């Protein structure tokens, strides 16, 4: 394997441990604030402090969840640096915390377009790509509606006529998704495949922690330790194709998606062929 990568990964584990410690410090500060407001709430006429205390308690729980994710990632990074298994993916830790084997995060722009994705494993990558290619699916619905989505079995095909059958072909029988929310907007979605538990509590808690980790924390890392993908080759291919056939970049991207879906190959495969000049796609 790549010795350089191993060395870098020792740094990765240390970084995750440091972030876990910072998250725990934030949790402690929020707990202290909650206690202060709980004391104030006991005085007559100051009942609103009880609500404020509750907000701080929720914030503290979110930071605790964040610390647990970072700790789990640090363990995996340490094992990998010691020569065990594949390079760890942060989303694998997220999937585990949600009680499932597969999870995908999508970061969206204000027009709900996918800007970047991160996945726990190859099957989740394929499932997430279906949503990108077909323009329908649970992550998109969760982000647009700003509420959780959970669909199982034949209902998946009813709700999303194209996405449903394609997802079933990957051997996935249930999906759940929650928005990644900030105070007044939504920056993306977290989707899990074949969740073993029902109910959104755990998923919502992990999504809140993930929103902190990629956006809101002082040491936020939208790259998720190098796991976030902007689909570079696909966008290069869209640029290249737009020149070759004289259309907009957006139309070229739509063509690439359509071709990948029709041929049942990955976007990367089609994109690579275009960039390498092996395919005209006209």
């Amino acid at each position, binding site marked *: 394997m790549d010795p350089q990568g191993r060395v870098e990964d020792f740094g990765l584990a240390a970084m995750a441990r440091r972030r876990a410690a910072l998250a725990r410090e934030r949790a402690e500060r929020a707990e202290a604030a909650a206690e202060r407001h709980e004391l104030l709430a006991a005085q007559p006429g100051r009942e609103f402090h009880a609500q404020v205390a509750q907000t701080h308690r929720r914030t503290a729980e979110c930071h605790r969840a964040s610390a647990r994710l970072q700790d789990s990632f640090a363990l995996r990074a340490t094992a990998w640096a010691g020569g065990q298994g594949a390079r760890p993916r942060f989303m694998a830790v997220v999937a585990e915390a949600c009680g499932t084997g597969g999870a995908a995060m999508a970061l969206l722009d204000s027009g709900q377009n996918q800007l970047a994705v991160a996945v726990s494993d190859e099957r989740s990558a394929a499932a997430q790509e279906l949503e990108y290619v077909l323009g329908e699916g649970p992550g998109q619905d969760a982000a647009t509606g700003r509420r959780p989505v959970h669909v199982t079995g034949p209902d998946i095909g009813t709700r999303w006529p194209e996405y449903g059958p394609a997802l079933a072909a990957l051997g996935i029988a249930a999906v759940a998704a929650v928005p990644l929310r900030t105070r007044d907007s939504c920056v993306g979605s977290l989707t899990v495949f074949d969740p073993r538990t029902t109910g959104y509590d755990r998923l919502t808690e992990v999504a809140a922690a993930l929103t902190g980790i990629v*956006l809101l924390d002082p040491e936020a890392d939208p790259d998720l330790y190098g796991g976030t993908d902007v689909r570079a080759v696909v966008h290069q*291919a869209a640029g290249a194709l737009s020149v070759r056939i004289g259309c907009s*970049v957006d139309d070229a991207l739509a063509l690439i998606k359509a071709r990948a879906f029709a041929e049942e190959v990955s976007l990367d495969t089609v994109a690579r062929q275009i960039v390498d000049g092996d395919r005209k796609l006209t």
Partner: protein
Amino acid sequence: MTPEQRLADAFVALAGSTADGPLDVPETLTVLAHRAPVLLGTRAAAVQFAPAGHDTALVVGSDPQVFHLEHEAAGRREGPGHECRRTGAGVPWAQAALDSGPVRQRWPHYAPKALRLGYTQVVALPLREHTGTSGALVLLSGAERAFSPATLGLGRSLADFTAVILERAREADRSRTLTAQLEQALTGRVVIEQAKGILATRRAVTPDGAFDLLRKYARAHQRSVRDVARDVVEGRSDLDRTDPAR
């Protein structure tokens, strides 16, 4: 309106429920300064606000004369508002009779000016956020007696509630800024990849070669790679072939 109604009304105004959306920071401070005298039966009120990292305090007053008094005091770093803001709750000077000797000594500019304006009593109540004191609510009266415990209790509630609202307003501001920055950063990365594909095809170079062209052009024209890439994608630029920097 009964006193209870006035109080409820003030809390609703502070929470921003009457407007279309939450109030921003200056609006919240203005509501607090204007409602406080009516609710608490004081002659005037002012707010000094300077959260961590802000050196200059934002000052709002219930009327122009109290605004000038507190604005000047904040500038001189003198007076009850400044001290309360800097030291948080429980300062000995939190409540003071302005004509007492020690007070005149402590605030040589503030005390005489406040007395000239007809104020005799002053108290400063901290705006406490969970990271520390971010400001102070200053109440002034022309009465001979000190503020009643009921007035101070209600004033503290009002200040505490406002501090929570302010903290939320600033958190929302911060998350909006971060969201916009993330979107801009990711969109920029996408646009650069698109421009690499366009240039690679036009010039028959590799994507890495195309990035090199973008980078050199950007440097020669003192622009960001992202802006140059956007021009390429939107058809505004073909990176002038005669450019010597190429």
